[in-house]
C-alpha cells in the first residue's frame, strides 16, 4: 500500500474522456485503437482569411442542434462535467454530489471573447471602447461569474461536492498532467484519501486560432484534415488545435482496496522540470525535458528499462518531435521503448492533453494495446524511434507507461502510470 518512499500508493479508480472522437471513455478508446482521426474543417465560425482552417472540435448537443456557439469557459465546464460524471460512475465514489476529496482543474485561461465584446459595444450604441463597455456591463453577474478564473472550478466543485477550495491551474500544454500531479501529491501528503484530477480545453475560437497561427505553431495542411496531424513524420509542419477533457478519480490504494473498488492502475510517478531557455522553445540540449522524464521514473522507483511504452507529447511541430526524440535517446539509450502520439488522431487538446493522454495510458495497460501514431507515411531519418506507425499493436507484459507533456513557457511534466499491483 506504500511506495518506495513510504508514501501511500495512488490508485486510479475512475476515468472519463471527451474528445472530438466521442463523448465517453470506451468509444474514444475504440476509435483511438482503430486509428481514427477526429480532425475536421472548422464549422463553428467563418474561416475565411485564416491560414489554418481545421481543428478538432467538440460541439455541445445544443450547438449541434443549431443553437448559439458557446464561449470557451462554458464548453470547458460542460466537457469537464461530463468527464467527471463518467469517472465517478466508474469509480462508484462520490455519488449524490459529495466527493470525499479536492478537485484539481487543469484548464485554459478564459476571457471575454468577440461575441461578448460585440454585444457590449452594441449595448453601448456602437461604442467599442472599454470605458463604454464597463458602463453597460455593470450588473452583469453572468459575465462576471462565467469569465472569472475561479468560476469554472467553483461550479464544478459545488456540483460534485468536492472538499476545500478547487484549484484551477495552467502549465500550458502540460496542464492536464500538472492537475494529476497536484491530486497525487494531495493524497501522498495525507491531505485526503481521494481527489479528482481534470484537464479540459475548448479554445477553438477565432482569436485563439489566429494567435497560435501567428506563433507559426499550427499546420496549414487544410485540404485533408484527417491527414494534417503528423507527429514524428518527415513532412510534419505544426500541430492541430483541438478540444476535449479527461478526468481521473484518484484515491489511495488503501482507500480503494478497503471499499472494494476496481483498481484501474497506479499513478506511480510524477516528474517536472522547468526550462529557462526560451518562451516557446526547449533548450537545444534537451536538459529540462530529460530531467522531467528522469524525475518521473525516479519518483516511481523505477529504472528506464522498466518503462515499456511512452505516450508521447508528440505535437507534430518540427521542434517538439525532434526534442522529444533527443530526450528519449538520452533517457533510454540505444533501445528506447515504443512511443506513439494520440495527437495524430485527436490533435493537440492543449490544457486537456496531459489528462487525456494519462487516461489513454491507463487503457493501454488495461488492454495491452499500444495506440498508433497515424499519418505516418514518410519516416523522418532524424526520428530514431519506434512510433507504432499507423496500426495499433498488441503487446504483453506491459506494466509501466511514461506519459510526456511539454509546455510553452518551459513547463514540463511527465507521469508514470503502472498496472495495478
Amino acid at each position, binding site marked *: 500500500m506504500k511506495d518506495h518512499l513510504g508514501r501511500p500508493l495512488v490508485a486510479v479508480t475512475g476515468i472519463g474522456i471527451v474528445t472530438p472522437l466521442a463523448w465517453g471513455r470506451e468509444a474514444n478508446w475504440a476509435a483511438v485503437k482503430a486509428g481514427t482521426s477526429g480532425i475536421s474543417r472548422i464549422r463553428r465560425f467563418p474561416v475565411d482569411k485564416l491560414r489554418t482552417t481545421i481543428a478538432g472540435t467538440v460541439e455541445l448537443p445544443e450547438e449541434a442542434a443549431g443553437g448559439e456557439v458557446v464561449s470557451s469557459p462554458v464548453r470547458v465546464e460542460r466537457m469537464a462535467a461530463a468527464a467527471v460524471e463518467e469517472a465517478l460512475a466508474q469509480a462508484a465514489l462520490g455519488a449524490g454530489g459529495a466527493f470525499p476529496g479536492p478537485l484539481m482543474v487543469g484548464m485554459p485561461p478564459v476571457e471575454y471573447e468577440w461575441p461578448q465584446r460585440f454585444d457590449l459595444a452594441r449595448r453601448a450604441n*456602437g461604442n467599442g471602447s472599454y470605458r463604454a463597455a464597463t458602463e453597460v456591463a455593470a450588473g452583469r453577474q453572468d459575465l462576471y461569474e462565467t469569465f472569472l478564473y475561479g468560476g469554472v472550478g467553483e461550479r464544478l466543485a459545488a456540483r460534485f461536492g468536492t472538499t476545500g477550495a478547487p484549484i*484551477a491551474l495552467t502549465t500550458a500544454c502540460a496542464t492536464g498532467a500538472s492537475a494529476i500531479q497536484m491530486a497525487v501529491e494531495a493524497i501522498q501528503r495525507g491531505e485526503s484519501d481521494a481527489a479528482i484530477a481534470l484537464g479540459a480545453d475548448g479554445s477553438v475560437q477565432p482569436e485563439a486560432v489566429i494567435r497560435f497561427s501567428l506563433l507559426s505553431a499550427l499546420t496549414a495542411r487544410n485540404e485533408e484534415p484527417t491527414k494534417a496531424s503528423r507527429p514524428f513524420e518527415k513532412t510534419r509542419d505544426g500541430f492541430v488545435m483541438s478540444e476535449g477533457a479527461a478526468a481521473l478519480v484518484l484515491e489511495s490504494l488503501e482507500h480503494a482496496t478497503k471499499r472494494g473498488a476496481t483498481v484501474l492502475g497506479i499513478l506511480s510517478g510524477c516528474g517536472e522540470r522547468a526550462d529557462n531557455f526560451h*518562451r516557446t522553445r526547449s533548450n537545444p540540449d534537451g536538459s529540462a525535458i530529460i530531467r522531467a522524464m528522469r524525475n518521473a521514473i525516479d519518483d516511481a522507483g523505477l529504472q528506464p528499462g522498466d518503462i515499456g511504452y511512452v505516450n508521447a507529447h508528440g505535437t507534430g511541430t518540427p521542434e517538439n518531435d525532434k526534442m522529444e526524440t533527443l530526450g528519449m535517446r538520452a533517457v533510454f539509450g540505444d533501445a528506447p521503448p515504443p512511443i506513439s502520439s494520440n495527437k495524430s488522431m485527436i490533435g493537440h487538446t492543449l490544457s486537456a492533453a496531459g489528462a487525456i493522454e494519462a487516461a489513454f495510458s491507463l487503457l493501454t495497460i488495461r488492454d495491452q494495446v499500444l495506440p498508433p501514431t497515424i499519418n505516418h507515411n514518410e519516416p523522418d531519418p532524424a526520428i530514431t524511434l519506434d512510433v507504432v506507425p499507423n496500426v495499433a499493436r498488441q503487446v504483453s507484459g506491459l506494466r509501466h507507461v511514461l506519459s510526456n507533456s511539454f509546455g510553452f513557457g518551459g513547463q514540463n511534466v511527465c507521469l508514470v502510470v503502472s498496472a495495478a499491483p
Partner: protein
Amino acid sequence: MTRKDVVITGIGLVSSLGEGPDAHWEVLSKPGAAPVLDEAAFAPYAVHPLPALNLDAQIPKKGDQRQMEPWQRLGTYAAGLAIDQAGARGLVSDMHLIVAAGGGERDIAVDEAVATALCTTPPAEAGPILNERLGTDLRPTLFLAQLSNLLAGNISIVHGVTGSSRTFMGEEQAAADAVRIAAARLAEGRGGIALVGGAYVSQRWDLVLLYGAGGAVWRGPFAPVSARTGAGGFVGGALGAFLVLETAEHAAARGAKPLARLAGVACDATHKRAGGASAAAAKALHAKLGAPAGAGLGVLSGMTGVAEARAEEDAFLAGLGGAAVRRTGSLIGHGVEAAFPANVALGALALSRGGFYPAMDPADAGDGPVERILVTGFGQWRGEALALLERAA
C-alpha cells in the same frame, strides 16, 4: 510523516507606496500614512498606480522586457526582489515556483477599434473581417505576454528558477492556495526552497470591465475599505508580491536569516457566501490552524471592500477578541492574485522588525505589541483563506 518547519527568508514587494521592505516599513510603520491614488485616469474608478520601477535592475535584457507587458514585468521584478533579499541567486536552479496569475494585457487599441467597427455587422459578414483584422493587427508576441503561465515562464527565463513551475488561476483564492501548497511541499520534503507569489496591474480597463461587471469594483471617490457604502467594491492596487519560502533547516544550513516562520496556511471556498457561511468557514480554518485570538495577535486583513465579503469577514474578526486588526487595502488597494502574498510579506516584515503597523483604516482597532500575525483572504467572490505567521526562532 514529520513536517519540517517552513520560514520566509525573502519578500519581494512592489505597491503604489514604493518597492522593497524598507520603503514599505518607512511608510506603514508610522501613523497617518496616506494612500497613493489616481482618481482621474479611470474615473469613476480610483486606482493605486504602479510606481516607477528601474526594470533594468531585475530584468537586465531589454529583449526580455520587450517580450512582456506591465503585468509580467511587475511580477518578474517582484520575484527578483524576493530572491535578492533571500540571498538565493545561487539556489534558483532547484527552486520551486508557484505563481497565482490572472491574464496579461490585451491590445486595448485593437480591441476598441475592432469592437467599434464590427459590432453591428451581421456575424456572417463580420467573421471574415474579424479574422483579417486580428491576423494583421495582433502582435505575435502579445499572445505570450498575455498567457497566464508565462509570468512563471518569464521568472524561469529571467531569474533561472527551474526546480518546477506551476501557475494557479482563480483570483484571490489561487494565491492563498499557491502559498499553502508551496509551503506544504517544503514541509513534506519536496525540495528545500520555493518562490511563490503574484502580481496585479491596476491600471487596466480590461480588468475594470471584468470585475466591474460583477459589481466588485468601487465606483466613486476614494474611501477606505470599511467606509465603502452600498455594495462596496475594491479599489485596484498595483501590487507585485513574492515570497521565498524555505525549510528552516535549509535556511539555517546556508546561514540565511528567516524573517518569520510560516506556521500554517488554510483555505476553503464556501459555495454560498452571505448569511454567515463564509464567516463560519473562516472560523473553522482558524481552529484548524490552532491560531490564537486576543491581545498579542496582529491581523493583516486582505479585506477587499466588497460589502458581502466584508460583512462575513467582520463577523469572523469580531470573534478574535482584542486582536490588532489592520485593513491593508485602505493603503495599498486590492491586488487580487497578489493580495494574499503581499499581506504575508507585510506580516513577515513586521515580525522581522519586531513591530506592527498603526491603524490603516478608520475601523482598525487594537494595538500592539504583536507576537503572531494572522493574514486573512476573503476573495471578492469566493474563497476564504488564513495564514499564521510567527516570529522566527
